[in-house]
């Protein structure tokens, strides 16, 4: 049933439908409403879960690790500083191939401390071995949470659902949270082969030496690469059951004969679509592409979708300090590997909750018609207090 819900509330309801037996909770803005709703559901007997209020995010990640390793579906959520505090454990979960699912309410990373949205937190963990899915709307957040448990449990890889803090978590908009029966039909009972069970004792997390470590890591990489197909298939199956389609790994908008394509992730895609429409209305051949799945990196799909365009601009909310935009760098590599020579320009914007306005997005499109710049540019810099120089191009 379609309802007007706050994003966090919708996500909490989606989590509830997935029947996690353990929820680990440590508050950090802007994830707080998600765990608060889950707490109320547990308090009211609407969610049969052990609600574990932990002492830190490091513990939150560890609690869900322990729960899943013991054969129970689990959930946690975090953001920013908290997500980074989990780092060691997140690598550990991925290496143990545990199907943990978590929501990252994307938020900037300090210093300087900032509670607003950008993608630096999840992007900083792109090497950890987690599947990363970035959602555009609260509806997609709901649907992706449900898909995530299927993906995680099928691929035996942990999944991080990335949703923009405040822009999505704290926004009321229409959402259809699927009914319990429909979710039960889509999500089988949690089964996992390698659990801690006295009836079938296993050792998890043992040591490794130079003569076998590399093979474990290679296997992890292969599992991640193969997961791409599963993510696609599960999306298709979801579409068949629930009627909503997110394109699987990538979602594109007005790509037909587009001469300039803007590539981005997350909720800004909504505004990008509005700008594409208005520019097309002015006779410009522009289009947009959203990476829904960032890990595994959908190189083949991206190349196939983009090979016929003339210019690509990437607008992303994270970067590697001292280097370049992250998505832009990986996209350039994918195109280069496929022998496709299209200039990719890198724009960094929307950091720390800075709003990506329609006019700013339009400027990014316009920049693509000028001479391509090899350096990454920051979209929409204001001036800072006196003694800090304004950076226009790095």
């Amino acid at each position, binding site marked *: 049933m379609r*309802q*007007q819900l*706050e994003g966090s509330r919708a996500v909490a309801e989606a989590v509830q439908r997935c029947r996690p037996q353990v929820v680990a909770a440590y508050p950090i*803005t*802007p994830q707080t409403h998600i765990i608060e709703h889950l707490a109320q559901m547990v308090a009211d007997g609407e969610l049969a879960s052990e609600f574990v209020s932990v002492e830190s995010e490091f513990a939150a990640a560890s609690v869900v690790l322990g729960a899943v390793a013991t054969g129970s579906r689990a959930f946690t959520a975090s953001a920013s500083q908290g997500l980074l505090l989990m780092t060691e454990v997140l690598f550990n979960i991925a290496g143990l191939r545990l199907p943990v699912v978590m929501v990252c309410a994307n938020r900037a990373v300090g210093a300087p401390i900032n*509670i*607003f949205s950008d993608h630096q937190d999840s992007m900083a963990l792109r090497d950890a071995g987690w599947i990363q899915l970035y959602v555009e*709307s609260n509806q997609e957040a709901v649907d992706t949470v449900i898909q995530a448990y299927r993906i995680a449990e099928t691929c035996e890889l942990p999944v991080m659902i990335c949703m*923009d803090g*405040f*822009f*999505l978590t*704290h*926004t*009321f*908009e*229409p959402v259809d949270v699927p009914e319990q029966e429909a979710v039960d039909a889509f999500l089988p009972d949690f089964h996992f082969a390698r659990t801690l069970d006295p009836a079938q004792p296993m050792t998890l997390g043992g040591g490794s030496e130079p003569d076998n470590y590399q093979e474990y890591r290679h296997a992890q990489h292969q599992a991640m690469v193969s997961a791409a197909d599963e993510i696609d298939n599960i999306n298709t199956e979801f579409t068949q059951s629930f009627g909503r389609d997110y394109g699987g790994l990538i979602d594109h908008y007005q790509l037909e004969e587009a001469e300039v394509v803007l590539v981005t992730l997350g*909720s*800004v*895609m*909504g*505004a990008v*679509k*509005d*700008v594409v*429409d*208005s520019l097309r*209305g*002015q006779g410009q051949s522009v289009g947009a592409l959203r990476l829904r799945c960032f890990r595994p990196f959908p190189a083949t799909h991206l190349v196939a979708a983009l090979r016929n365009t003339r210019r690509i601009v990437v607008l992303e909310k994270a970067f590697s300090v001292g280097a370049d935009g992250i998505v832009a760098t990986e996209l350039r590599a994918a195109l280069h590997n496929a022998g496709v020579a299209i200039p990719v320009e890198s724009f960094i914007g929307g950091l720390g909750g800075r*709003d*990506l*306005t*329609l*006019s700013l997005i*339009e400027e990014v499109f316009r920049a693509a018609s000028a001479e391509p710049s090899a350096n990454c540019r920051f979209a929409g810099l204001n001036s800072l207090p006196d003694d800090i120089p304004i950076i226009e191009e790095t």
Partner: protein
Amino acid sequence: MNFDVNKDKRIFGQSDIAKSGKKVATSGLHEIRFHGRGGQGAVSAAALLSLAAFSDGFEAQAFPKFGSERRGAPVEAYVRISTIPIRRHNQVYQPDAVIIQDTTLLRSEPVFDGLEDGGLMILNAERRPETLGTKALRWVYLPANRISETFLGRPLPNTVLLGALAAATGWVSLAALEQAIGNHLVRKGEEVVTANINALREGYRITLEQEEAS
């Protein structure tokens, strides 16, 4: 075709007919900005407005501009009401209406930003404020603190001001607002719900009177 993405409010895509048959928005999109202080319910007001618009059959979006959780600190909240699905999640820069829950904000906050001539300002005030800014705005003012104190026992002006907005614009129906209050505040009990609905109605009534008188 000349199109200025900043100025034009048209939403591209397939139009949708409002199911309720109520007074339909005259343009595709209405944007409303609330100014308040933490604890005055500006964020709740935005949420309630979006709930009401949704139940009236529109597409709606509401979100806060967040600071930290401090009582008394200035807050802003935004609402979009549209006849077609709203895709963008930007802040609201060109509100068609601004609701100011606290007159002290007139001096300290950019309450006039983005309003065009003919835009609507709803102010919680005992009397018409002296400095009205430079734009040719439509002003509605009402003593929402006093009204809410009568019905709720304390100065919580948000539902009163929502009533005022409904009366001044017709963008959302009173019935839908009442239903939204009932659902959103159900946990606080029937008395609180009824009190808020009465405050809402009073805000509506007073504003209609003011509109009719002018």
